[in-house]
């Protein structure tokens, strides 16, 4: 497998998820955006197809039927598989893509830092249906009302009490925050230790003191649920602290690992931005082919076609950055800068392409339920979550000189 040519496996996944996006996601996307509802039925269908909520833990086998080579020195394909799949699903609808894969945010630290028992417990908590008859989903609760970009300022605390930890604090903007069957919550265990004291805990729904809060009304990605979550003296067994007890050779489970985890999820998020941009671009292209403007073919106007040419360039560049970041990870090479470049650039392209598409379509795109209006609103989140555009540039700056510019 190289960077520029898809293997038959990757091509197959692209085709399968592209078809799923076109035929299953697109027809319901506007409805879920307008109703601000999760596509529970589709989530069940996707799970049956092998698009499990815990794909990160299950590896690629479930989706493709082919297991990853267990030899840790050999290149993997999981990173590229994820970016290819994400682009296709977000091409269908970014909100639905997040509903289908939002649990992956929680599964990712469990896969990376969890012990075998914790992985098994996480999967057990996600098995079966919840009390509403929905498939179960997970949430990753890191951000707080006063702490988003600067995750070292967390105020949620975990205090040791014998065999248990007592978690106290509030989390903000948590994907699947109301519906999750299991939460991976990050809390400060040793305030004096700063970042090193921040650890992740598995907390099951229904644990006394765990109170899902208000669901947010959002600008975009409205098919994905976002809510506050409150932890009011939630008692969690010590075995549910991720990475505990320290297993030789396993990750420590601290905040540094959270950052590493973000390096692996950023290309996936970047790919979603690419998917939105491509959706708007292809919508325009479709309109232009065969379309006419005051009696002349639309395709004969530079005003329109050069915009499309620019969009094509930008989308291709964003996709290449994204695949490069994923390829490096698959080849066990550091990708901090590449992951940040991909995330920041894809967010920029998603916003720029959808904005220009709105302008070119004029009044048409003001109509309620117009897909380009939705993509324009959806695109904005890609410059905010998983590290804002400014935070990606801060990471890149630090890589260049070792300093954090302010």
């Amino acid at each position, binding site marked *: 497998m190289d960077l520029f040519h898809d293997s038959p496996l990757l091509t197959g996944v692209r085709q399968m998820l592209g078809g799923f996006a076109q035929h299953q996601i697109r027809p319901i996307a506007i409805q879920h955006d307008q109703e601000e509802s999760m596509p529970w039925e589709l989530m069940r269908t996707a799970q049956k197809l092998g698009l499990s909520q815990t794909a990160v833990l299950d590896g690629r086998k479930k989706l493709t039927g082919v297991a990853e080579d267990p030899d840790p020195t050999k290149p993997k394909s999981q990173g590229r598989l994820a970016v290819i799949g994400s682009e296709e699903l977000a091409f269908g609808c970014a909100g639905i893509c997040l509903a289908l894969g939002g649990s992956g945010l929680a599964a990712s630290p469990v896969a990376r830092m969890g012990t075998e028992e914790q992985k098994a417990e996480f999967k057990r908590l996600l098995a079966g249906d919840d009390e509403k008859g929905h498939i179960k989903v997970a949430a990753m609760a890191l*951000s707080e009302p*006063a*702490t*988003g*970009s*600067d995750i070292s*300022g967390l105020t949620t605390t975990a205090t040791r009490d014998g065999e248990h930890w007592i978690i106290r604090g509030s989390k*903000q*903007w948590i994907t699947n925050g109301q519906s999750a069957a299991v939460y991976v919550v990050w809390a400060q265990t040793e305030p004096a230790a700063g970042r090193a004291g921040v650890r992740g805990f598995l907390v099951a729904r229904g644990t006394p003191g765990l109170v899902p809060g208000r669901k*947010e*009304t*959002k*600008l*975009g990605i409205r098919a994905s649920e*976002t809510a506050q979550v409150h932890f009011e003296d939630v008692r969690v067994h010590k075995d549910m602290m991720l990475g505990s007890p320290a297993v030789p050779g396993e990750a420590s489970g601290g905040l540094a690992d959270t950052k590493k985890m973000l390096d692996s999820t950023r290309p996936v998020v970047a790919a979603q931005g690419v998917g939105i941009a491509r959706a708007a671009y292809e919508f325009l292209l479709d309109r232009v082919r065969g379309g006419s*403007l*005051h009696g002349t073919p639309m395709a004969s106007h530079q*005003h*329109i076609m050069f915009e499309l040419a620019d969009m094509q360039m930008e989308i291709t560049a964003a996709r290449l950055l994204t695949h490069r970041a994923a390829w490096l990870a698959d080849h066990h090479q550091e990708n901090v800068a590449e992951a940040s470049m991909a995330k920041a650039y894809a967010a920029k392209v998603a*916003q720029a392409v959808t*904005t220009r598409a*709105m*302008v*070119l*379509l*004029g*009044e*048409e*795109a*003001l*109509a*309620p339920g117009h897909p380009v*209006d939705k993509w*324009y*609103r959806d695109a*904005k*989140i890609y*410059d*905010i*979550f998983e590290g*804002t*555009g*400014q935070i990606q*540039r801060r990471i890149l700056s630090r890589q260049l000189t070792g300093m*954090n*510019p*302010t």
Partner: protein
Amino acid sequence: MDFALDDDQQMIVDTIRRFADRDLRGWAADADRAGAPPDRLAHVAGELGFFTDAVPADAGGQLEAAYSHATRALRGFELGRGCPGLAALLETNVEPALAVGRWGSPAAKASLFASLTAGGLAALAHDSRGTLSVDADGAGGARLTGPLGPLPALAIASHVLLAKDGVLYLLDLAGVARIAVAPSSWRAARWATAELTAHAVAADHVVSRDPAAVAEVLAWARASLAARAAGVATAAMEHAERYAAERVQFGQPIGRFESLIRLRDDALTGAAAARLMALHAAWALDTHHPSAHDAASRARVLAGDVVTRATIDAVQIFGGYGFVNDYPVEKLMRDARPFEALHGDERLGRVLAQKAVI
């Protein structure tokens, strides 16, 4: 050249600013959720002279001398700072009233002004996409067929002033079914679509067949849109500035990060330029300067870019809070769209017009 406001203009700006800060901003979030203006809007705004300011005094309105587009641009900027959706309703009567007052027949005047002075609304439509078809009725009038809208105010308007292929038509909408819609922008502005089927416009309701009149009406609308857009961009950054002074990350208010200062400063530079271009276009319209139509169009190009960028960047400065409806900026990002989209892609119009004369 004098950039200072005279006493009357200053008074109008101060009054509308108070109204925008207190009432419009206060009502904006609820009106957005409800998809409708508050009941009080008509009364409070009516007291301030909205709705009939472009209707001649002898027809029961308030217009005694020449209409001042400069004053309208000054007030539009303040209205944009308040709430663009409600502002659209407050400004909707101006183009129909001015056009009919200037070129309309007695019958057209009687029909429109009777409605507007009784609290009615009228909307401006521009068939920039050519979706309506026109058949002459053989008596100087026309029959119109095709989709109208989505347009602000159309759900409750008694009349529409339609600009199409160099002709201005006054449509009486009595009996025309409207489908009320709530798009993501200007949700309170009572948008609707309508399907016209051989809708009759009598000869005395064809307001003008002079393409220059159509260009003039669209220039009024463009200057007004540009002024309001500059106000929206400014408001977005007023909210962002306040938030950035309070929000602390990495041990300092985020407003002190240079990259965020740049976002805000560039947006305010753009907004100031757009406001000046809108005022200049309005002055050119008031003085019948030959550059007026071009100035209004250029003002809208810039103001459209500026309001889009500024509202996107205001959401960015708010981070996660910008993406949810606890704060007003996500609404302003949605509300920026019509400033570029209404009446068609402004740049495309300019390009095609210039291509035709080279």
